[in-house]
């Protein structure tokens, strides 16, 4: 405890420099814009802006990118409340009561409660992250290749299960991602695999062109030429203050949403989306007036928004402690660390304390910045929604091209982005989720090396994955998930996965 607090003070001393505070502020502002703008999700936003951090030191770079991440989560609620259009999938539940409040002339308090809830959830989750990540990393130091392989296998199966839609399709996306990750030089033997003589493919296909292609370009391809957007409500600053009753009604949902969000956020998959569903369902279940839900209940905004932000920070726990991303956004953050020469994994916290504790401290600062800036500036952010899409999408396309090119100064990457864009567009048409593919690409080298090393350790005996206790637990977890996935084939019941799929499709 004492060491943790000491480290946190050290982190604050890192953040409280003019430069890092500036980058935290810029990250939060850009993130909010990314969250507000349709067609630019947090993943594409972070990927496109990754090259802008190349000139920065690793601490400032990760502070900036993390700011974009939680800023985007924050910004998504604005469009949900004012336009009934979720900025990203996790804001779907906020649409229901947030927009109903806006129609009753209470858009300001809905935005304020969303911001306050997000701030409290974000700050409390950072405390959880701070206390949970270091011991988890120490525990993971005892992992060998079999444990790592089964951990990743379990994580990928959980991801396939927790992502909405068909699990068969999700698993095939993971396998396809792993196959894309096989392109390039084999780390253990030096063989060129599936490169077709292109030297630029020697290092494999990067996460940035894949993520920008699958999430940025495919979004533009699918949405360009759409009809005019609906009118946007514009709240005034003086209308933002919630009443005493609204504040009182929000306390419980914020607390429950935070706890739920953080715990669910650690699980791989669409954790931040699931957490909002669970939070909304719980609030409605325990409410004395459930009939108010759907007609503008403040609890329906406070709970899901808190859960969403807590989950997005909970998702950083496995990434920072184990070097294992649980979703595409932590995967891109992981790639960003690697671009800056940092190897994530159980030794990350021990070897890079400045970056880890700087990031933790920056989250406290960032959450405060978001609260202080977002509320007064909400009417300015709303103006971004007035940009016609026919002007917006060519601009986004330009940022995609420049962002991808700048990573390696390679036009092959721009080509990969284009191919991935078309692939992502077609996959969306065919009802596939593309997020598991991104994670497959990122995890492919680690999972393959762990697998081959484990087999080398056991002289080809596959039982090594069962004989080692930790490894067998992860394997059991994967089997349980597969059995749970098979269950709906026998008992047809509309469960949370169906609702999740629907929400992701509608967002």
């Amino acid at each position: 405890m004492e060491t943790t607090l000491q480290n946190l003070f050290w982190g604050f001393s890192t953040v409280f420099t003019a430069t890092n505070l500036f980058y935290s502020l810029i990250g939060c502002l850009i993130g909010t814009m990314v969250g507000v703008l349709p067609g630019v999700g947090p993943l594409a936003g972070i990927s496109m802006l990754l090259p802008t951090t190349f000139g920065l030191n690793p601490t400032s770079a990760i502070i900036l990118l993390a700011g974009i991440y939680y800023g985007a989560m924050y910004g998504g609620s604005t469009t949900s409340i004012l336009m009934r259009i979720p900025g990203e999938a996790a804001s779907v539940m906020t649409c229901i009561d947030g927009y109903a409040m806006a129609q009753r002339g209470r858009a300001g308090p809905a935005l304020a409660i969303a911001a306050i809830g997000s701030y409290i959830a974000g700050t409390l989750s950072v405390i959880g992250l701070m206390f949970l990540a270091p011991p988890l990393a120490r525990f993971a130091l005892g992992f060998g290749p079999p444990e790592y392989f089964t951990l990743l296998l379990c994580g990928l199966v959980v991801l396939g299960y927790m992502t909405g839609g068909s699990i068969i399709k999700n698993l095939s996306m993971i396998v396809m991602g792993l196959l894309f990750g096989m392109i390039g030089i084999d780390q253990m033997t030096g063989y060129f695999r599936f490169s077709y003589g292109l030297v630029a493919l020697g290092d494999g296909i990067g996460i940035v062109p894949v993520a920008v292609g699958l999430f940025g370009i495919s979004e533009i391809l699918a949405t360009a030429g759409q009809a005019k957007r609906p009118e946007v409500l514009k709240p005034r600053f003086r209308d933002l203050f919630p009443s005493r009753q609204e504040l009182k009604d929000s306390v419980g949902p914020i607390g429950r949403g935070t706890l739920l969000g953080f715990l669910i956020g650690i699980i791989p998959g669409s954790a931040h989306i699931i957490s909002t569903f669970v939070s909304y369902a719980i609030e409605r279940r325990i409410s004395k007036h459930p009939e108010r839900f759907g007609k503008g209940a403040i609890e329906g905004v406070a709970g899901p928004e808190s859960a969403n932000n807590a989950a997005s920070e909970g998702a950083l726990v496995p990434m920072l402690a184990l070097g294992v991303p649980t979703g595409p956004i932590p995967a891109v953050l992981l790639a960003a660390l690697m671009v800056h020469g940092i190897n994530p994994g159980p030794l990350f916290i021990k070897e890079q304390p400045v970056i880890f504790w700087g990031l933790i401290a920056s989250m406290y600062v960032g959450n405060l910045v978001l609260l202080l800036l977002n509320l007064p500036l909400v009417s300015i952010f709303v103006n971004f929604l007035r940009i016609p899409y026919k002007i917006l999408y060519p601009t986004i396309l330009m940022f995609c091209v420049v962002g991808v090119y700048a990573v390696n100064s390679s036009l092959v990457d721009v080509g990969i982005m284009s191919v991935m864009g078309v692939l992502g567009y077609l996959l969306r048409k065919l009802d596939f989720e593309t997020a598991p593919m991104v994670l497959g690409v990122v995890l492919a080298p680690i999972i393959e090396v762990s697998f081959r090393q484990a087999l080398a350790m056991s002289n080809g005996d596959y039982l090594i994955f069962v004989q080692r206790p930790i490894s067998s637990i992860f394997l059991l977890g994967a089997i349980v998930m597969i059995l749970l996935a098979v269950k709906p084939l026998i008992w047809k019941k509309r469960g949370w996965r169906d609702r999740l799929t629907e929400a992701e499709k509608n967002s």
Partner: protein
Amino acid sequence: MVIDPPVEALLDASAAINPSTAQDVRSSLGNQEPICCDFDVSSADANGLSVPRSLHSSRIGFLFLEPLLQFRQVSVNKRFVGFRNFLPSSSHSEAGEKSKMTIDRISGGFLVLLGLFVTWERRVLPLGTQGHPGPGYFPLLLAIFLMILGGILVIRGGRGESFRALKWPEGRHALAILGCCLFATFAMEGIGYRITMIIILGFLFGIVERLKLWQIFTLTVALALGTFWVFDSFLKVPLPRGGWGF
């Protein structure tokens, strides 16, 4: 609540025989959520389980119809699907009857082909041994797994959305954007970032979106030159300058 036509037909038939029971069943069905019919005459016929026409009109027939209707009621309440989902469902699916080329089957077929392609391309990579797997070992495992998943999609995909029903309203825009991406890929190093972007943005704003001339000019020049300044000059991220240094 809309009751499925085949069930409606059964109810009409049973009403002629035992109006009160039929009414009870109708009202109890009317209280359920609408779902597809689990067992109907047409599917029974398609599966080779012919339902005699006499069942619809004879008093004896209602002895068979009543448990059938009750089964329907139970199946609606518990939503028991049994192992039907493991089987190809084209036999009892309307969509499947119209077109068996569902999006699931097409995508499953594509995954199988991709798996076969990887297996073929992997032949130049050594497999190694089980104790020392070579560079081709893991890709082969993945390709086999992909083919299995694709196969499941092909087999189970009969009930999915028809491929022909897919709409492509954004197709024209999508082709234009894709063309711009390819143009950037092949032209940017030859003619430089700024000229490439002026051409791409000019094309999208002017020809695809038909903005006003002053808007096209202002947006194109400001965005192309502005991003070059931010990335290349300010952030020191080198962008291509092209043959003549611009």
